[in-house]
């Protein structure tokens, strides 16, 4: 056996157990995730969201029960699985959160600033109404197949912009979404990164948001997830409810079509 073959053989011997260790680590983490499924604190947000949907609030003392999430006024069941979409009354594409802000303004009389005031909650003193409402609307789509429309010209435009944003490299690290989410088998420390460019990866990722994020101790929405990705990429802040956020959501949600919606989930 020559030196090169021997070296290759030795490397093979070292790599094999490491690969085995990695496999068993992800098995153990899968067990951790499975153990968390029973009793998801997201249910507490769902309950509060349902109350907020039905309560008469704001300067007009009205409830949100006439809010049209795309399937008709007040229809909540299945609505999340068809968002984002174009809304004629606003003449723009909206994700769930921007649509909720719209309804809070139109039906309840809040100003847009008031409605958007606290998108990401923190503890019991600084609860976010939008997070609670999102949790409630989301759970009413559990079990429904993703079915985001791509018919209106503005929906197509949003999808294309979202796609551009997904591949756009920038920031101090020259990262794009695709840098971390464009290949199979990538991970950061022990966190496996979903490949969002495959149907399976896209579906698994999108259908599990919103989620109770254990590390946050809060129910977090998809807008939060994108906001946090931008932070981790060292990108400028992704403004809540911005066209950029909606476009990126449109791209990722549409790519998840066919996947069964299964949120709110519970994540690390």
């Amino acid at each position, binding site marked *: 056996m020559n030196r090169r073959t021997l070296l290759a053989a030795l490397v093979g011997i070292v790599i094999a157990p490491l690969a085995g260790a990695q496999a068993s680590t992800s098995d153990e983490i899968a067990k951790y995730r499975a153990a968390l499924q029973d009793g998801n604190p997201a249910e*507490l947000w769902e309950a509060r969201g349902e109350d907020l949907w039905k309560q008469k609030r704001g300067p007009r003392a009205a409830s949100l029960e006439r809010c049209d999430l795309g399937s008709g006024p007040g229809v909540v069941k299945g609505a999340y699985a068809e968002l984002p979409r174009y809304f004629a009354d606003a003449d723009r594409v909206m994700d769930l959160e921007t649509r909720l802000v719209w309804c809070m303004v139109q039906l309840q009389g809040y100003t847009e600033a008031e409605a958007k005031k606290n998108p990401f909650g923190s503890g019991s003193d600084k609860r976010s109404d939008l997070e609670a409402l999102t949790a409630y609307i989301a759970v009413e789509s559990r079990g429904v197949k993703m079915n985001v429309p791509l018919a209106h010209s503005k929906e197509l435009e949003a999808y294309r912009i979202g796609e551009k944003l997904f591949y756009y490299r920038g920031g101090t690290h020259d990262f794009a979404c695709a840098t971390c989410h464009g290949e199979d088998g990538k991970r950061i420390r022990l966190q496996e990164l979903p490949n969002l460019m495959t149907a399976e990866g896209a579906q698994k990722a999108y259908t599990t948001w919103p989620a109770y994020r254990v590390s946050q101790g809060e129910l977090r929405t998809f807008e939060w997830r994108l906001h946090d990705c931008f932070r981790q990429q060292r990108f400028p802040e992704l403004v809540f409810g911005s066209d950029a956020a909606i476009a990126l959501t449109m791209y990722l949600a549409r790519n998840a079509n066919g996947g069964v919606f299964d949120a709110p989930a519970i994540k690390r």
Partner: protein
Amino acid sequence: MGEPMKIRATLTGDATEVKVLMNHEMETGQRKDAQGQTIPAWFIQTIGVTWTGKTVLSAQWGPAVAKNPFLSFKFKGGAKGDTLAVRWVDSRGDQRTDEAIIA
């Protein structure tokens, strides 16, 4: 009065399985806020679960129980339609009682 909890009580054979999700910050008193001030400890200290006047579980907790605590246990007895009550008292003296029907 604390925030409402979610209780699920299901009869399986001759035993009732109880699962509770409580709404509580369970602040350890170890964390500091953005200004560097210690966030004071605030957590559920005692719990009692009763069924037809009988205590089926009681517990004492410290701040190491996770935020928005989950609890699951089983007791012999219970019938569909019976009421189960869960009560907690926290370190501020605040308390919460919620009831559930055994299904």
